[in-house]
């Protein structure tokens, strides 16, 4: 009975925000503003409470049995293709659901204050609730198709919210860009699904859902031959959603949306969907070394690449946006070296401190009368005390200073990159980490230290934000400090509860299964006993070596952790020192190599321009000259459409003549039809 209640709770986690969106959306013009906002917050609050309830239930189960499923209805049943509408929560979904609904709730509350004077208040909360619904569908969906529904849903909401203030042409363009770039990724995602579907469909028993994660995992051994192809295609989708090279270009532009949106969608939740998807499909990815290597490389390069761009940006939100791209790179890097748990750990800690930073920047922007250029800020430390302290905590957490959350998750990733990926990947990540500390301190120095450089008019209005905005900041600051303690690594005397919790999800059943099969097969063979003895001795040797390794490993972990802590502190101090005391050094840096380097970084490596020249312009040319003029206007419209329309119209008008309204004629047609019919029956066989 209780189990049942818990199972149906699962659907309400997802549906309650949808109901909130529906009520607010349908009554958008009639709903009083206060109630619309509170309703939206309450809907997400209920989702969070229900998530906690189900997660507590999961905690009470055996580690290997932790799964709650809730199937609503069969969705598609086409011969062997069977898909259910259903939700499932395991350890991985539990983490994601808590982060999405929890951080989502805080950002909803923050928006009450931030959007208070906006004309589109009700519309904003409608979209925000709709987003939470789609995101929860994504992380709680029981199969890949449900995940994809959520995936598209969050994409739609992202588009709607980026161009929320659509009266400004630039905002509309940013929304369009995000949508189109994501479509490219989605195309890859779809193809990846097709590959998996066509491979598995012929092998399934009747009624097994082909895209169900359980089923795919069970049959993972059949995916071996297509693992690289399917994995890379799905990864194309992930590069779109999670803003990796080469599809990251939409995310910085997406900052055109309201700041709570940047915090919720473009930092804490939606952009991590790609990481979640790869972690969710871990059974597929471990089958392909190539796919894993590509993911690790793309992740590491993105991490460093985006960090370099962040060094030069002057818009406070743009710096944070490139920082997000960079941090997503770390998560991908973790997945690529097989450390899925570390990747998800960073998803969680990043959600805390990056949401905090964005909301803090929103508070700054709010105080500065919507000014976003850091060159016109400064000295806000005294005037915005709560924002300042919480922002500082977010910064050190992001820089990875012990004992803040970022330290544990980033260090875990760098260690896994070193031990499982190699020194090259580690070095890229390590360099990026130092730059992260540096550009964040540059941001803090320009914003909070020194003299205020704004106009007197703006200065006059500077004020700390209301409690609805500062409370979420404080809560997120606490989480940014403590969130990492869930995963204190073994070498520091911790238990790494986080990794242990996720372990069953990433447990490599398929591979282990295969090996066991092989051993069993050999044991039955003629050489059975010899092999068994060899296997045992090899096992023992392995254990001994592992024991020796262990001590060395721990020392190495200490070394790396200390190095990255020192590196982060160095970055932080340099950033502070240069941008408060030695502004001249920054100017000198800009002039370095004739200013070329600075120009390249400031213009984001001219990637947008390259895409424009290499893809957009040729594409336009082909569309305009070949597809539009020749094929569409000439061939299709001229010959096929108009031609066939004329033909059909003539035939139609002729047939119409038969319908002359005369009963006798009707009876005659009937009778001759019947006569023909009877004649046929008589003469046929």
């Amino acid at each position: 009975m209780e189990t049942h209640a818990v199972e149906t709770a699962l659907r309400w986690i997802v549906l309650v925000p949808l109901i909130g969106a529906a009520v607010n959306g349908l009554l958008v013009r009639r709903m009083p503003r206060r109630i619309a906002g509170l309703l939206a917050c309450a809907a997400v609050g209920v989702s969070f409470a229900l998530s906690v309830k189900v997660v507590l239930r999961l905690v009470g189960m055996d580690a290997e049995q932790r799964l709650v499923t809730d199937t609503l209805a069969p969705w598609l049943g086409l011969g062997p293709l069977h898909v259910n509408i259903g939700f499932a929560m395991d350890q991985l979904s539990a983490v994601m659901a808590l982060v999405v609904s929890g951080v989502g709730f805080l950002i909803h509350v923050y928006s009450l204050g931030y959007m208070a004077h906006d004309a589109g208040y009700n519309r904003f909360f409608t979209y925000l609730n709709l987003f939470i619904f789609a995101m929860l569908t994504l992380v709680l969906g029981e199969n890949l198709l449900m995940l994809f529904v959520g995936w598209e849903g969050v994409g739609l909401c992202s588009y709607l919210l980026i161009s929320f203030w659509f009266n400004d042409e630039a905002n509309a363009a940013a929304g369009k860009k995000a949508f189109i770039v994501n479509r490219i990724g989605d195309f890859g995602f779809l193809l990846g699904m097709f590959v998996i579907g066509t491979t598995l469909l012929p092998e399934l028993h009747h009624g097994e859902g082909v895209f169900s994660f359980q089923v795919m995992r069970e049959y993972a051994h059949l995916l071996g031959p297509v693992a690289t192809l399917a994995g890379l295609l799905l990864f194309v989708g992930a590069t779109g959603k999670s803003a990796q090279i080469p599809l990251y270009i939409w995310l910085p532009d997406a900052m055109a949306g309201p700041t709570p949106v940047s915090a919720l969608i473009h930092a804490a939740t939606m952009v991590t969907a790609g990481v979640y998807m790869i972690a969710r499909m871990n059974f597929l990815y471990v089958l392909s070394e190539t796919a894993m290597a590509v993911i690790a490389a793309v992740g590491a390069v993105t991490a460093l690449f985006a960090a370099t761009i962040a060094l030069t940006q002057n818009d406070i939100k743009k710096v944070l946006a490139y920082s997000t791209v960079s941090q997503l790179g770390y998560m991908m890097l973790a997945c690529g070296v097989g450390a899925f748990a570390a990747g998800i750990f960073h998803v969680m800690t990043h959600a805390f401190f990056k949401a905090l930073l964005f909301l803090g920047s929103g508070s700054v922007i709010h105080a500065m009368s919507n000014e976003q250029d850091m060159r016109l800020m400064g000295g806000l430390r005294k005037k915005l005390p709560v924002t300042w302290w919480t922002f500082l905590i977010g910064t050190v957490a992001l820089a990875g200073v012990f004992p803040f959350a970022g330290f544990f998750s980033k260090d875990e990733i760098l260690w896994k990159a070193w031990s499982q990926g190699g020194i090259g990947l580690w070095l890229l990540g390590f360099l990026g980490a130092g730059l992260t500390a540096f550009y964040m301190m540059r941001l803090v120095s320009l914003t909070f230290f020194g003299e205020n450089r704004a106009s007197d008019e703006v200065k006059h209005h500077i004020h700390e934000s209301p409690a609805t905005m500062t409370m979420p900041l404080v809560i997120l600051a606490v989480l940014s400090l403590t969130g990492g303690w869930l995963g204190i690594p073994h070498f520091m005397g911790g238990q790494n509860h986080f990794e242990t919790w996720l372990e069953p999800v990433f447990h490599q059943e398929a591979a282990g299964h295969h090996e066991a099969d092989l051993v069993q097969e050999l044991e039955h063979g003629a050489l059975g006993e010899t092999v068994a003895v060899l296997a045992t001795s090899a096992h023992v040797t392995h254990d001994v070596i592992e024991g020796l390794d262990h001590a060395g490993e721990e020392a190495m972990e200490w070394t790396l952790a200390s190095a990255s802590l020192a590196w982060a502190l160095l970055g932080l101090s340099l950033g502070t020192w240069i941008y408060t005391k030695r502004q001249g050094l920054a100017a000198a840096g800009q002039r370095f190599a004739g200013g070329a380097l600075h120009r390249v970084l400031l213009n984001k490596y001219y990637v947008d321009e390259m895409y424009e020249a290499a893809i957009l312009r040729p594409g336009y040319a082909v569309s305009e000259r070949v597809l539009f003029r020749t094929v569409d206007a000439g061939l299709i419209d001229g010959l096929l459409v108009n031609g066939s329309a004329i033909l059909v119209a003539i035939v139609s008008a002729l047939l119409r003549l038969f319908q002359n309204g005369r009963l006798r004629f009707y009876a005659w047609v009937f009778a001759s039809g019947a006569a023909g019919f009877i004649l046929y029956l008589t003469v046929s066989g």
Partner: protein
Amino acid sequence: MTNVAGMDLATQLSALLPYLVLAAGGLLVMLVDAFVKSLRKEHLSMLSLLVLLGVAVANFTGSMSLSDRTLLGGMVVNDQYSWFFNMLFVAVALLTVTFASGLYDRDGHYRAEFYPLVLFATLGMMLLVAATDLMTLFLALETMSLSVYVLVAGNRGSLRSSEAGFKYLIMGAFASAFLLMGMALLYGETGGTSYAMIGDTIAGMNSASLLLKLATGLILIGFGFKIAMVPFHMWTPDVYEGAPCYVTGFMATGVKAAAVAALLRFAWLTLPVLADVWFPVLMVLAVVTMTYGNLVALSQNSIKRMLAYSSIAHAGYLLMGVLAYLQTGRDIGVATRAEEVGVAAGGAVLFYLVGYALMNLGAFGIVTYLSKDRKHEADTIDGYAGLAQKRPVAAASLAVFLFSLAGIPPTVGFVGKFYIFDAVVKADLLPLAIWGVVNSLLSVYYYLRVIMTMYMKPAEDDSYSGGSWETVFAAGVLALMVLMLGVMPGTLSQLARNTFKFMAY
């Protein structure tokens, strides 16, 4: 009373409860109208709705103890198949009464006979599907037809309506004569009128005798008339146009569904020997029916006439499903996976009938809603100009229904067509499926034309305006269902497949 089928009378009567409630209810409505003088006009429609709800409850509770039960000495059967269609017919009747009463209330000249006639016609439909004896089949068919003849002529002041009723009556009598002749021949050949007996006799034959072929051929003509199959369709446009719009909706969905359902049961009965005989004829007729319907619909200016031709075209799509089913009875490759293909085909037809009822009734509901009174129906397509601004909910609902009729996702019409085409492909009839798709393409033009008029042309002075809120509310709910079943067809399609499986396998 003798205990014919081994069941006592009480059990039999309880199994027949839905039919008894409906018959008694019809009589009650008639008597109340005649003898209760202080009656207000809304009361009759309320009473009819209550009767129909009672039938639904009786049918639903009856399903709890559902098993394959032959009743009244083999005259009717109470199985999941009849249960499924009973539900459909009750829903169709409920909506028809709702739509009609909305218009009657505006119009002021209500006709008391309307409600009992709808109830009796519904009873006829239900019995038509439950019939397992030629006698019951014919009685049920005539119960339905006679009521509908009168309903068609229900607009008493209108010449067109009277003409339509008259034409339908003459042509219907003509068709009934063919049907009856076929039944007589079948009785002569098999020596019985019950399906069980006919089935046994046919099972004993090696090949179809000439008499059997003629008998079933004539019966097929009778059914073909009811479902508006070319060349027995000539009445359709005139009758659909002349009848009051809510009656047209009732005929296009209820009568057609009943005839197709009875045809499928009959096809199942005679499948072993007759599939080979029927197949080529029906193949030609299905192709001609859908093509003809779609082509002529292109050049219509009256929305009711357009929907009449569209209804002919949809009869063609339904026949495609029947053909896929017949294919399983033929001595060819498909026979090895007969059950799989058969269930897919039968399930597709059942699903399509439900979907078609929803979208077509909805479309006629909107036409009813926009009609000023029964003399001035919202019939010419030009009058729909600018409806999107004037009546956004009605326009949006009608757009959903038309998209669905055209088979565009995410609507039930798309899924229904998909299942039909899927079954046809499974039955190795790929060219037929392709032809079906080409036809769907053709049909898009005339459906979209109405949507274009509603959304892209400015309103004129004589553009239609709204009517009673119940009608548009009911139509709005239908539109939501059309969309919902288009997104989540799983449950209904599973039910349809199971239902057909229980009947045929």
